[in-house]
């Protein structure tokens, strides 16, 4: 095979491998919110394939999020179980992760799971008190903030004044 043909074959295999990796990552979920995949969260910044070596670049959500270490491990385990051997997971802090990167389907999944998805765009900088958050259970907008800090770093605690149920809200970040 001449060089051009060899390059074409390499590119084809690279594309196939890239697609395979994205499909594998679709199934890696957030351990705390198992309906969301790492793709839904928007934390996969890049995948680099170099001579059979895979590098997955992720951007952490909150600085202290304890799920990030578990997520890194799960990404690695998923890739290993699919036959990849040379795997590197690196972190890229900038540009900083924002809920703006969360996919629309991710937000829908959050709602059906019972967590209110982020309402505004992060650059709105509107603090929690002014936001109107819809109850994920009865869909009323008559809700109030109980605490800016909820069960995890990313969530705030709300209650619905109509159905009286408390619920988590995924904060804009």
């Amino acid at each position: 095979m001449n060089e051009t043909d060899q390059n074409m074959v390499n590119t084809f295999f690279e594309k196939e491998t890239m697609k395979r990796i994205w499909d594998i990552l679709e199934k890696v979920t957030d351990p705390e919110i198992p309906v969301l995949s790492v793709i839904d969260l928007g934390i996969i910044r890049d995948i680099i394939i170099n001579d059979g070596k895979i590098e997955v670049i992720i951007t952490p959500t909150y600085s202290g999020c304890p799920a990030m270490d578990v997520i890194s491990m799960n990404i690695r385990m998923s890739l290993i179980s699919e036959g990849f051997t040379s795997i590197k997971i690196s972190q890229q802090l900038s540009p900083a992760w924002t809920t703006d990167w969360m996919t629309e389907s991710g937000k829908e999944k959050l709602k059906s799971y019972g967590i209110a998805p982020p309402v505004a765009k992060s650059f709105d900088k509107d603090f929690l008190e002014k936001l109107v958050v819809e109850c994920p259970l009865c869909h009323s907008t008559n809700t109030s903030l109980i605490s800016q800090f909820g069960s995890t770093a990313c969530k705030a605690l709300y209650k619905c004044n109509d159905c009286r149920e408390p619920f988590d809200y995924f904060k804009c970040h």
Partner: protein
Amino acid sequence: MTQKINNLISTKAQALFNYTIHLADSSLIMGHRLSEWTGYGPMLEQDIAISNIALDLIGQSRNFYQYAATITNSNTEEVKNITEDDLAYLRDTREFKNHLITELPNGDWGKTILKIFFFSAWQFYFYQKLIYSSDKQLSAIAEKSLKEVTYHLRWSSEWVIRLGDGTEESKKRILLSIEELWPFTGEMFEPADYEKELSKEHISVFISDIKNDWINKVKNVFTEATIDFFKEGIWMQTGGKNGVHTEHLGYILAEMQFLQRAYPGCEW
């Protein structure tokens, strides 16, 4: 350990290492102190809030420690495998460069709130400037941390107002705590030698530049909290940024580092 590292790396790398460690230590010690409230908060939501703030700070310190480890490993042939854990758990008090205010005991709820307020107000203006650092990684960490610190400042400001403009008891306690903490606030605006060194290349922040912003923020919140306190020109405690600490840091490290010291190399 720090002396060994400083002996092995270039002078410029030393300044960067020390600066990064200073930022890492301040966030770690503050986060550790706040975690002492976990399980003891006055109300469940506030217990959770203060634990979340502690978690954010420890996360920030991790980012700085990881960078300090990278600086060490890439600047000397002899040391190639220092990790964030080595830096956090195997250094002694004189090697820590945290602000003194972060190691002070929590005291009552009001004193802790004030500590968070003074410190997060400093972080808020500091990170806004650090984003423009010519060092890309410090800038990236600042960008990330600023989002979280904004929440910390807002939460603690509201509590200062609630307590200052609260009952006679809460006001009395808050005023007492301000008296006790005030002499430790000046250190946050006094540059250490390594900061001055790095400012020549626009890596570090000119912290004297943010002093007025900080003072105005404190004055505004105190006014709304009906707290009548402001002292200028008093003698300020310093030394933390150069490893000279209060008696409190030793106890903190004894507790925090005990497991690693007792079982060296242990892992989960």
